């Protein structure tokens, strides 16, 4: 079993399952804050998936997307928290 297959059949599936697990939390909530952190985690895992995918497809340009994700994903979370704090009726 070479490394490529290892990535394909072990690493990526684990990441995929992780995404699904996090998504279950997103569905369950129960509060918006739970959903927000689930979203944040999905994005982080996504960066991981992109990284592995970059390795697998030998396309280093795809890493640029990961940079943007890493840099600005938290803005969404901040925005959510900023206004969750302001409104109490959701």
């Amino acid at each position, binding site marked *: 079993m070479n490394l490529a297959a290892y990535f394909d059949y072990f690493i990526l599936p684990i990441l995929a399952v992780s995404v699904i697990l996090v998504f279950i939390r997103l569905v369950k909530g129960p509060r918006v804050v739970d959903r927000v952190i689930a979203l944040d985690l999905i994005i982080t895992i996504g960066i991981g998936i992109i990284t592995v995918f970059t390795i697998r497809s030998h396309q280093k340009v795809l890493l640029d997307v990961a940079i*943007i994700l890493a*840099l*600005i994903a938290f803005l969404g979370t901040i*925005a959510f928290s900023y206004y969750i*704090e302001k409104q109490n009726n959701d």
Partner: protein
Amino acid sequence: MRSPILQAATKYLLPILLLFSFFLLLRGHYYPGGGFVGGLVASIAFVLHSFANGTESTMKLLKHKPLSLIPIGLGISATSVSLPLLFGLPPMTGLWFDEPIPVIGMIGSSLFFDLGVYLVVIGVVLTILFTIALDNLSDKT
């Protein structure tokens, strides 16, 4: 209600994001990126600043209204679109300097065009967000 942690982080995130946005702008012709994404990232930098320090302080940081960036950006890109007309060429024709410049590569009208796009995007996003944010503030009072 502002978070000191966020404020502090913004101090170094703002320059990083701006630098990164410029990086995206300049190398857009060769790698993923370009004026749009660059502009969006740059505006996100200021949005972050406004989250941390309040919209008024970001406005102060910018000195001018972001709205004024729009005509400037549009002017630049419109000029680079119609500049070839002066040479009797169809609009939007790429005009290039002969020699490449280090770091950026070939310099041509498309880079100016992208710069215009970059400025417009910043102007637009900031105008939209700040207008809303200031309105939210004034609603409260």
